[in-house]
C-alpha cells in the first residue's frame, strides 16, 4: 500500500465545482441585477445623496411713483439660523449673538438649546449685521441670503402700498392686489456635494434662473402724497380729531396723486402698529357724506330740468317731513333762495325742497349714474360699495338723501363725483396704477380708465358756478386760494353709533377742485370727529393747504373765473 495516495472521491470534487459555479453564477446574476435592472434606481439613490436643489428667489418688482421714484424696493438680507446639535455652549453663544441682533439673550438661548437640527434665530437681518455675527465664527450658526422689502420713504402712502410678509407674499394694499406681477417666478439651482456636504468645484450644475417680477408704476406723486399727509396730520392734531382722509385726483384721467388716511403706520415695521391702521379708509370705509351730497341734488335738479337756476324757493329754518323735523345748521327767518343760494348756504331744508321738485326717479337716477351703491372699480383690495337706499323712497328718505343723510359713500366715490363735475359731466374711473415695467425694461401702460357720461356739459358748468359761489361767499370761504378760483362744497355729518342711532360726533369734509373754469385737480378732505365740527372750519383749510402745494408741484396756472350763479342772497 506504500506510495499509494488516497484520492478524494470524484463526486466530492464535482460537488465543490458545482457549488463554486453556482456561487459564481449567483454573483453574476446579482451583479447583472444591480448593474442592469436596478442600475437606474441605485444611480438615483446615489445622486440624491450628493445632489442638492435650492430655490432661487425671484427679485420682487419695485413700486415706483409716477416720476419713477422708488416707494418699495427689494434688498438682500440674511436669515440667521442655528443647528442646535452643533452648538456646544448655548449660554455663551446666546450672550454673544443677542446684542448684535437686538434680541433677548434668554430667547436666543432657548432657540439654541431646542431639539432638532434647524431653528431660525432671526429673519431678514441687514447684511452688515449678519457679517458682524459671521465674524464671530460661532459653531452651529449659519446664514441664508433672502430678499427683504424696504419702503425708503417710510410712512408715505403705507395704506396704498401695503406690505409683504416675511416670506415675500403681498398681504395688503397694492402689494397684495398686484402680487402676481410683482412676485416674478422663482428659479432653482442644482449642485453636487462632497461627502462633507460642500459643493464640489467643477461638478455639474443645473441652474434655472428666476424671472424677476415687474415694477409697478403708480399714479401717486410721492411729494404730493407726503405733503398731503403732513397737512392732514396737522389738521387732525389741531382739531383734536380721531383721524382723517385726503385724496388728490386728476379729474380728466382719474389719476390719484395722493391718497392718505391718518393715523397711518410705517410699512418697514408694520408689525409694531395696530392693524386698524392698515386699512386704506379712502377706499374701504364709508361715511354719511352730509352736505357735500347737495351737489348731486343740485345736479339732479338741473339735469332733469325740474328746477332752473333762477327759480326762487321760500326756505324756512325748519321743516316737518313725515313727523320728523329737518333743521338748517343755524336758525334764520324764512329766506328767499335760488338753487345757488341753497348750495352756497348749505341749507338742508332748501335741499329737501329741491328734492321734492326733482322726485324719486330723478334723484335715484342721478345718484345711481354717479356710481352710488357700486364700487368705483379702482383695483384695490376690499373696496366698499357704499349704501344707496333702494326705491321707492319715502318722503323722509328723499329729504334726508338730498342733504347726505341715509346714504353712505367712500371718500373715493365722493372725490369721483366732484371729478365728474370738474370734468364736464363725464365720470372717469379713478386709478392708482399707471403701468408695469417688465424685467426687460419694457413699459406696459395700463389702458385708459373707463368713462361714462353722467351729466350734460351745461349742467356740470352750472353746478361748477354754484360750487364757486360756495367758496367765494358761502360756507367754504376757508378754501379760498389767492389768484385761483376754487369750486367746492363743505359737509358736516353726524356719525351713527353701532346701534344705528345718530350721536353727537361729526365728520367734517370739504371736496373741491381748481381752477374752477379749467379744473386740473380735485382734492377731497375728510376729518373724523373734529372738535370744531364744521367742514368749513375743520376740513376746508386742509383743502386750501394741500391745493396750494399741488399748484406749485404741478405748475397749475390760474384760469379766468366762472360767473357766479343767479342768487338773491346778499353778497357781503
Amino acid at each position, binding site marked *: 500500500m506504500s506510495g499509494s495516495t488516497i484520492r478524494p472521491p470524484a463526486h466530492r470534487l464535482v460537488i465543490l465545482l458545482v457549488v463554486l459555479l453556482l456561487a459564481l453564477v449567483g454573483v453574476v446574476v446579482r451583479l447583472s441585477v444591480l448593474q442592469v435592472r436596478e442600475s437606474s434606481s441605485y444611480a438615483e439613490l446615489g445622486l440624491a445623496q450628493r445632489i442638492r436643489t435650492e430655490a432661487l428667489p425671484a427679485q420682487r418688482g419695485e413700486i415706483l411713483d409716477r416720476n419713477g*421714484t422708488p416707494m418699495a424696493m427689494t434688498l438682500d438680507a440674511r436669515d440667521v439660523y442655528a443647528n442646535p446639535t452643533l452648538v456646544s455652549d448655548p449660554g455663551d453663544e446666546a450672550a454673544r449673538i443677542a446684542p448684535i441682533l437686538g434680541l433677548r439673550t434668554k430667547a436666543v438661548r432657548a432657540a439654541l438649546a431646542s431639539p432638532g437640527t434647524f431653528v431660525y434665530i432671526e429673519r431678514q437681518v441687514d447684511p452688515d449685521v449678519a457679517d458682524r455675527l459671521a465674524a464671530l465664527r460661532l459653531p452651529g450658526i449659519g446664514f441664508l441670503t433672502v430678499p427683504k422689502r424696504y419702503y425708503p420713504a417710510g410712512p408715505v402712502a403705507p395704506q396704498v402700498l401695503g406690505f409683504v410678509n416675511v416670506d415675500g407674499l403681498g398681504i395688503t394694499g397694492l402689494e397684495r392686489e398686484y402680487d402676481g406681477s410683482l412676485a416674478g417666478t422663482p428659479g432653482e439651482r442644482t449642485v453636487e456635494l462632497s461627502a462633507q456636504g460642500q459643493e464640489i*468645484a*467643477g461638478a455639474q450644475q443645473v441652474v434655472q434662473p428666476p424671472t424677476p417680477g415687474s415694477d409697478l408704476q403708480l399714479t401717486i406723486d410721492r411729494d404730493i402724497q*407726503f405733503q398731503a399727509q403732513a397737512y392732514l396730520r396737522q389738521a387732525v392734531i389741531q382739531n383734536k380729531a380721531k383721524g382723517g382722509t385726503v385724496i388728490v385726483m386728476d379729474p380728466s384721467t382719474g389719476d390719484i396723486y395722493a391718497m392718505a388716511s391718518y393715523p397711518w403706520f410705517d410699512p418697514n415695521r408694520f408689525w409694531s402698529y395696530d392693524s386698524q391702521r392698515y386699512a386704506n379708509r379712502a377706499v374701504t370705509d364709508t361715511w354719511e357724506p352730509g352736505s357735500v351730497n347737495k351737489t348731486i341734488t343740485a345736479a339732479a335738479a338741473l339735469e332733469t330740468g325740474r328746477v332752473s337756476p333762477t327759480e326762487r324757493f321760500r326756505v324756512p329754518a325748519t321743516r316737518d317731513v313725515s313727523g320728523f323735523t329737518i333743521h338748517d345748521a343755524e336758525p334764520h327767518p324764512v329766506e328767499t333762495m335760488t338753487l345757488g343760494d341753497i348750495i352756497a348756504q348749505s341749507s338742508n331744508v332748501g335741499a329737501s325742497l329741491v328734492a321734492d321738485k326733482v322726485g324719486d326717479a330723478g334723484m335715484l337716477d342721478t345718484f345711481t349714474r354717479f356710481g352710488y351703491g357700486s364700487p368705483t372699480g379702482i383695483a384695490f383690495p376690499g373696496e366698499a360699495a357704499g349704501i344707496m337706499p333702494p326705491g321707492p323712497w319715502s318722503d323722509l328718505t328723499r329729504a334726508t338723501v338730498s342733504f347726505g343723510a341715509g346714504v353712505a359713500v367712500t371718500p373715493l366715490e365722493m372725490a369721483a363725483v366732484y371729478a365728474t363735475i370738474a370734468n364736464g359731466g363725464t365720470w372717469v374711473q379713478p386709478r392708482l396704477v399707471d403701468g408695469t415695467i417688465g424685467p426687460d425694461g419694457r413699459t406696459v401702460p395700463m389702458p385708459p380708465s373707463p368713462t361714462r357720461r353722467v351729466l350734460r356739459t351745461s349742467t356740470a358748468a352750472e353746478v361748477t358756478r354754484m360750487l364757486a359761489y360756495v367758496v367765494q361767499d358761502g360756507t367754504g370761504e376757508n378754501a379760498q386760494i389767492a389768484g385761483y378760483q376754487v369750486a367746492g362744497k363743505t359737509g358736516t355729518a353726524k356719525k351713527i353709533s353701532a346701534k344705528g342711532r345718530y350721536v353727537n360726533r361729526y365728520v367734517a369734509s370739504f371736496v373741491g377742485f381748481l381752477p374752477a373754469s379749467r379744473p386740473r385737480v380735485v382734492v377731497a378732505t375728510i376729518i373724523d370727529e373734529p372738535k370744531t365740527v364744521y367742514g368749513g372750519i375743520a376740513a376746508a383749510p386742509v383743502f386750501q393747504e394741500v391745493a396750494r402745494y399741488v399748484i406749485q408741484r404741478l405748475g397749475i396756472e390760474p384760469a379766468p373765473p366762472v360767473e357766479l350763479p343767479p342768487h338773491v342772497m346778499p353778497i357781503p
Partner: protein
Amino acid sequence: MIVGVASMSALQVGSSLRSDALRGQLATLAEQQGELRREVATLSAPSRVMTWAHGKGMVMPDNVVILRVSPATAAEPGA
C-alpha cells in the same frame, strides 16, 4: 492619454473655481449696488429733505404766483 485627461480635468476645475469666484464677486457687487440704491432712496425721502430744509430755516411759501415769460420778452435778453 491619462496625463491628457488629468490635465483637462485640472483645467476644468481651475475654470470652475474662477467662475465661482466671479459669481461671488457679482453677488457682492449686486449687494453693494442694492445698498447704494437703498441709501439714495432713503436720503431723498421727503421727510428727511424737509427736516434738513427746516433746519436751514426754509419754510413753505404761503401764496404762489406763477409768472409766464412771454416769447417776446424772452427774445430780448438785454432788456
